[in-house]
C-alpha cells in the first residue's frame, strides 16, 4: 500500500461543511463536478470507511439517505468495497451503525473505467461494479453501478459519486452521492 501521508481524516463524528454544501448542490452542478473530477487513487481508499449521503430527498423517505462505504483489498491486491447501513437521523448528526454493529452488504469491485465497456459513463472515474462484487445473483444490489470522482484535485478525502442501475443493457441514473473519509477499517472478506 502506498503511503497515506497526505490523507487527512475528517472530523470523526460530524460531517464537514464542505461535505454538506456539496450534498446540497443542484443536480446540474453535481453533474459538472462529475465531469471535472479526477479519478481517485485506489491505494488511498483501501482500508478506509467513508460517510455517504445520497443527494435526492426521496432517499430519505426510502431510509437510504445516509450510509457508509468501505474499501478493502483482496489478497490478490484487487480493490473491493462494501456498504454498511446507518441510523437515518439528521445529516448533521454522527454516522452511527444501524443496530450498533457494522453489517456489510452490497459488495462491489473497484476499477478504473474501461472506455470500451458498457459501463463507461465517466472515463475520469472509478467504477464501483456491484455486479462483480461477489453478491448473490438475486441480490438487488447486484444491478448497481457507481462512478466515483475526486471533488478537489489531488485529494481523496471528499468524493462525489453517481449511481446507476443496470437493467439488461440499459443504465438508469438513480442518484448522486457524496463520500467523506470517516475512519480506518480492517475489514476483509
Amino acid at each position: 500500500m502506498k503511503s497515506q501521508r497526505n490523507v487527512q481524516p475528517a472530523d470523526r463524528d460530524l460531517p464537514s461543511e464542505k461535505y454538506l454544501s456539496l450534498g446540497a448542490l443542484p443536480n446540474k452542478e453535481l453533474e459538472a463536478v462529475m465531469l471535472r473530477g479526477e479519478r481517485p487513487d485506489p491505494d488511498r481508499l483501501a482500508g478506509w470507511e467513508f460517510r455517504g449521503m445520497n443527494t435526492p430527498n426521496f432517499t430519505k423517505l426510502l431510509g437510504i439517505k445516509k450510509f457508509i462505504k468501505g474499501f478493502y483489498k483482496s489478497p490478490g491486491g484487487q480493490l473491493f468495497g462494501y456498504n454498511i447501513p446507518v441510523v437515518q437521523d439528521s445529516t448533521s448528526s454522527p454516522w452511527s451503525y444501524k443496530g450498533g454493529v457494522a453489517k456489510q452488504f452490497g459488495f462491489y469491485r473497484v476499477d478504473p473505467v474501461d472506455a470500451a465497456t458498457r459501463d463507461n459513463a465517466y472515463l475520469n472515474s472509478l467504477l464501483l461494479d456491484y455486479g462483480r462484487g461477489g453478491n448473490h445473483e438475486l441480490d438487488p444490489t447486484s444491478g448497481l453501478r457507481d462512478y466515483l470522482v475526486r471533488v478537489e484535485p489531488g485529494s481523496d478525502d471528499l468524493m462525489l459519486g453517481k449511481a446507476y442501475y443496470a437493467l439488461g443493457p440499459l443504465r438508469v441514473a438513480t442518484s448522486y452521492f457524496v463520500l467523506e473519509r470517516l475512519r480506518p477499517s480492517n475489514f476483509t472478506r
Partner: protein
Amino acid sequence: MRRPAGIFTRDDVIHDVVLDCDAIVVGSGAGGGVVASELAEGGLDVIVLEEGGYHPTEEFAPEPGAMTRKLYRDGGASMAIGTPTILYAEGRCVGGSTVINGGMSWRTPEKVLDRWYREDHVDGVRDGGLDRYFERVERYISAAHQDPGTVGRDNQLLRAGADARGWKVVDNIRDQVHCAGTNNCAFGCPTAAKRSTLVSYIPRALAFGARVYSDVKVERIARAGKRIVGVDARVVRANGTRGPKVTVRAPITVVCAGAIYTPALLMASGIRPPSGALGKNLTLHPNAKVVAVFDENVEGWKGVHQAYQVREFQDEGFLMAAVTLPPSVLAMSLPRYGDELHEIIKDYNRIVSGGILVEDTVSGQVRLLPGGMPMAFYQLTDHDAERIVRGTALLAELLFAAGARKVLMPFDGVPLLRSADDVRRHVYGHRIPKKHIEVMTVHLMGTARMGGDPARHVCDAHGKVHDTEGLWVADASLFPSPIGVNPMETIMALATRNAERILDHQAHRRAA
C-alpha cells in the same frame, strides 16, 4: 502523373482494403499536415486520409474555374445560412486550405492567448508558452517578409492611402521562399514559393514513413464504447460517387477536417462530448470587400497577394488588406448586375480590391442535415454589422486618400461613391440593413473548442476529445474564440503541441 512514394490516389485503391497503423490523421492541411509530420517523426506509423485529390505544383495555373473545381470544397461556394447568408471557401486537396490561402503567417495575438488561459483554462499558452511551437512551425514553412520588388501596385496604393491617413501598416509575414509575386495564391502557387503543407509538411511526413491516401473520405469514426479504434472511409471516385471501402484501424485518430467537417464527422459517428458544445461556437471572421477604381493602370494581378495589413483598427477588431481577384471571381462577387456591373468590370486593370476582416463577437453552429451533410448556421449581430459598415467605410476613405476615383461598397442600394464626402453621405448617414451586406469568409473556427472544463469544452487544452479514448482534434475547430488575425500559424502551432502530447501519451501507454 508522377507521385512521390507514399502518396496514394483513387487509382491505387480499386478494391476494398483494410489497413493498420499507429495513428490516423484525417485531413492534410494546416492541422493534418503538421500532425502527420510530427507523429511520423516521433516514430509512429501514420496514415493520412484526405478527401481531396493530390495535385502537385505543376498542375497549378491561373485558371480560376478549373482550379476551384480541383482544389476547393463545393467549388469554393459553400454557404453559412443566416442574415446575411455568408459565402465561405475551404480547401479540399492534399495540403488543404494551405494550398489556396494567402499564406499569412501570424502568431496568435498575446491578448487572445491570455483570454484563452483566463476564460477557457487552456494551460501553457500565455507568457510565451507557445513560442517554441511557433518557432518550429515558422522554420518549416519558411515564414518571412516578401523580397523587395514583389509588391504590386494595388498594395502600394493601399499603403499610400494608409500613410496619407497616418494609419498603422505592417508588412505581411508569409510562408514563402522568394515568392515572385505571381498572385495566384488562391489557385495554387505555380512556383511552390508558398510553402503550403503540400510542399512542406507533407513531404516531411512522407520522409518519415507516413502514407497519404488522397481521394478518400472518412465517413465514420469506428469505436468500441468510447474507445476509438479507427475509421471507416470510402474512395471518392472521379465523378464524386462512393468507391471501394478503406478501413483503417489504429489506437489514435486525429481529426483535422476543419471547423465544418470535424464536428460533422464526430456527430455522424455518434460522438457526443458531455459539454454539448460540439458544432457550436462557430466563428468566422466575416470579410467584406471594397472595390476602388483608379485613373492609373494598377494591374493588380502583378505582385504578391496581400503584401500589407492595415492594423490601425485592430483594437476595434478589424484589419484591412488589398486582395486582387481574377475578373470572373470579382464579377461574381460584386453586388451589381448588367450595365452597373459592366461599369466596374470594364476598368478591371485599374481596380484595387480591398477587404476587411472582422473579429466577430457571435457564434453560429454546425448541424447535420438528414443524409449526413453538414450545414453552417450563423447570424451576424448588429454590433458586428456596424463594424463591417464602419470598417469598409474607413477602407473607402483610405482608397480615396490614395487617389481612387470611384469606390463600390459591399452593400446593396448604396450608389457608386465618387469622393470621401460620398462615404459620409451614403454610408455613415444611413442605416444599412444586414441583409444588404455582402459578406464572405475563409476563416472558420471554434466548433470543437478546447479548454480545461469538460462541462464547457469539447476538447482538452491539447486537443483530446473529452470523454473519449484515442480521439484528438487538431485544426481551427479548437479555437475557443476568434483570433482576429489569419489563423494558419495558430492552427499549426497548436497541431505541433497536440502531436507532442499524443507522443507523450503513447510513450506512457507503451511504458505501462
